[in-house]
């Protein structure tokens, strides 16, 4: 009973896996750039209400994959117990998120979109990437300062559906409905707001 993920079932080798990583990256970068994520001004538009591209792309991608994984598992095409689920370290997840949020609104990029934008020649993106590099190296070098926080409150790999005591499928439905509501709101907001020249 062979199924995905291919690497876990040893249907492909480690090196093939890396090659696929490259191909997947090409797809990733292409889609990001085509959707406009190579522009910092489009990216922060969601925070100022003049461009909802981040909301639409992000949420749509999330529910697409969510549904995809659940359906593939239903058909026996993937073994969900073998895929990576982000572990939950409560405090560092929150604080890391906050710091990244600040980085986002100040820098106007995230690492993935930054690389994308740098690839098409945006010098501000390149600066952003340099900044990331510095930030990470700083963290690594001062690790003992952060270690306690970094490793605190490990909760395993809980899923949000487990938190609410509902099935994954039901959780997915809730996400889809939330997404649709958010899209509807977003589009209404876009209509009534004066277009911001940017």
């Amino acid at each position, binding site marked *: *009973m062979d*199924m995905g993920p291919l690497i*876990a*079932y*040893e249907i492909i080798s480690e090196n093939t896996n890396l090659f696929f990583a490259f191909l997947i990256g090409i797809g990733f970068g292409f889609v990001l750039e085509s959707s406009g994520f190579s522009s910092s001004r489009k990216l922060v538009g969601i925070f100022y209400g003049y461009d909802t591209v981040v909301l639409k792309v992000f949420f*749509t991608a999330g*529910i*697409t994959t969510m*549904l995809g994984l*659940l*359906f593939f*598992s*239903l*058909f*026996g095409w993937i*073994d*969900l*117990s*073998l*895929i*990576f*689920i982000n*572990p939950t370290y409560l405090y560092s997840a929150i604080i890391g998120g906050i710091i990244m949020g600040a980085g986002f609104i100040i820098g106007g990029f995230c690492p993935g979109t930054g690389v994308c934008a740098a690839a098409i020649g945006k010098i501000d993106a390149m600066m952003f990437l340099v900044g990331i590099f510095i930030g990470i190296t700083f963290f690594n070098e001062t690790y003992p300062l952060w270690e306690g926080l970094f490793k605190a409150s490990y909760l395993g*790999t809980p899923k949000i559906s487990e938190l609410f005591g509902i*099935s*994954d*499928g*039901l959780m*997915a*439905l809730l*996400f*889809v*409905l939330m*997404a*649709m509501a958010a*899209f*509807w709101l977003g*589009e209404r907001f876009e209509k009534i707001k004066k277009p911001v020249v940017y």
Partner: protein
Amino acid sequence: MKPRILLAIFAVPLALIIAAVPENTTHAFKLTPSELLEEANSGVQYYSPDEIADMIIKEDPSLQLIDVRNADEFEKFNLPGAMNIPLTDILSEDWQAYLDQDIRINIFYSNGSLKSDKAWMITRQLGYENNYVLMGGLNYWVETIMNPTSPNATSPDEEFAKYDFRKGAGSALGGSAGAMNESTTSSKPALPVIRSKPKKKRVQGGC
């Protein structure tokens, strides 16, 4: 039509379906109770001692005998090439790769067929394939292979053929009852690795 509406038309019904379907398992195939009953009654899970003896003599590489008795009994006496998975341990993760696979033919055996039948039912219910039961267990094995009854002079030819085979098998496999006392190696046979389930929650140092 607005893209948003189009998306909703696809996403919402799909989400409704996935929410309504019972939580799926990763074993795509499990038997229903009636399927299991049918198989259990039909006896498809049985291999006769003759068949097994034949496979052993021919050194059939797909054969894997599994002794489901406890370790002591296994130490005292076991069939050649057998490995020991005590029935009580059968659900342990250590053995899963041996039981849930599609390369070897596993034959459960015990003294009679109580334990081996149980082992079969459990693994079959989990959806595992390629597991079978030695009909009659070691008791029957000894009766037929080790001490075959010589046919009457009036028995049909095939009885003689069977007898000859069993006699030959018995001596090839260690002579009459009692001579097979040395336990063959009790170490695990080499596993034909088809699927290593490395419990991989993929390691990634911060994406």
